[in-house]
């Protein structure tokens, strides 16, 4: 595994890794926001039942 090659992607490193970084941010963001929504609901439901 040639790490320097992997990083530069034949000179296209910015585009390739930029794409995957964006994907990570969007997908990760969706998951995080969803978990936050779930947590908030659990909170609210506890408050309601008090």
């Amino acid at each position: 595994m040639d790490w320097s090659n992997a990083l530069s992607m034949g000179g296209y490193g910015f585009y390739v890794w930029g794409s995957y970084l964006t994907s990570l941010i969007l997908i990760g963001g969706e998951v995080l926001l969803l978990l936050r929504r779930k947590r908030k609901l659990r909170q609210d439901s506890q408050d309601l039942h008090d």
Partner: protein
Amino acid sequence: MSHRKFNWYKYASPAAFYPLAGKLVPWFAIPAALLFIVGLYVGFVIAPTDAQQGDAYRIIFIHVPAAWMGMLLYVLMAVYAAIGWAFNARLASMMASSLAITGAMFTFLSLVTGSLWGKPTWGTWWVWDARMTSTLILLFLYIGFISLQSAIDDARRADRAGAVLAVVGVINVPIIYFSVQWWNTLHQGATIRILNKPSMAPPMLAAMLIMVAACWLYSIAVVLVRLRCIILEREQNAALIASAST
């Protein structure tokens, strides 16, 4: 011989589906994560460098799955919304609302990755070709659906209004796509750039299909989790309204 008929209809109620959805999520989430890892490994380590596009082509391993998911989820959203409207099935409508956000996310992702793929291969950040333009319009359709549902307070009205919009939208998608193709050929004078997939060596195709499967499983998991949230939220709203009126 006696048959014990499995009554699927009992899961049509949100309250009954809620625990089932909860049990299903890990069965989709964990394989999704594994497939992401496998797909990226095949795509980056095993698949060779492309002759024409160099290593830039490796963006397709996320761009193409994202684009497909964006389109697939829109159709599914419209189908569920229509079912919810036609059969007065609340759960189906909630499913449509849940699908919308993930679909919009993937559509946006496909636009960004498409742009990042276009710049090194074709020289510009944005290409007004039929596919990219149609994807942009698809994003607008998602935004319209989500905005409409956010603007309506009453859940059932939001469900049904969304269904009308989704059905009108899904019927119009072929017309819109055709008109964009038409528009593209009309303006032939300007340079046409088509983002072409490179001719696919088997590892490339394998990686792409694995990533599609990964995105598919991921979508199911995320949509189910969001569906559970929607079910809870509506229950809470109903409880609030009930307690306010006593």
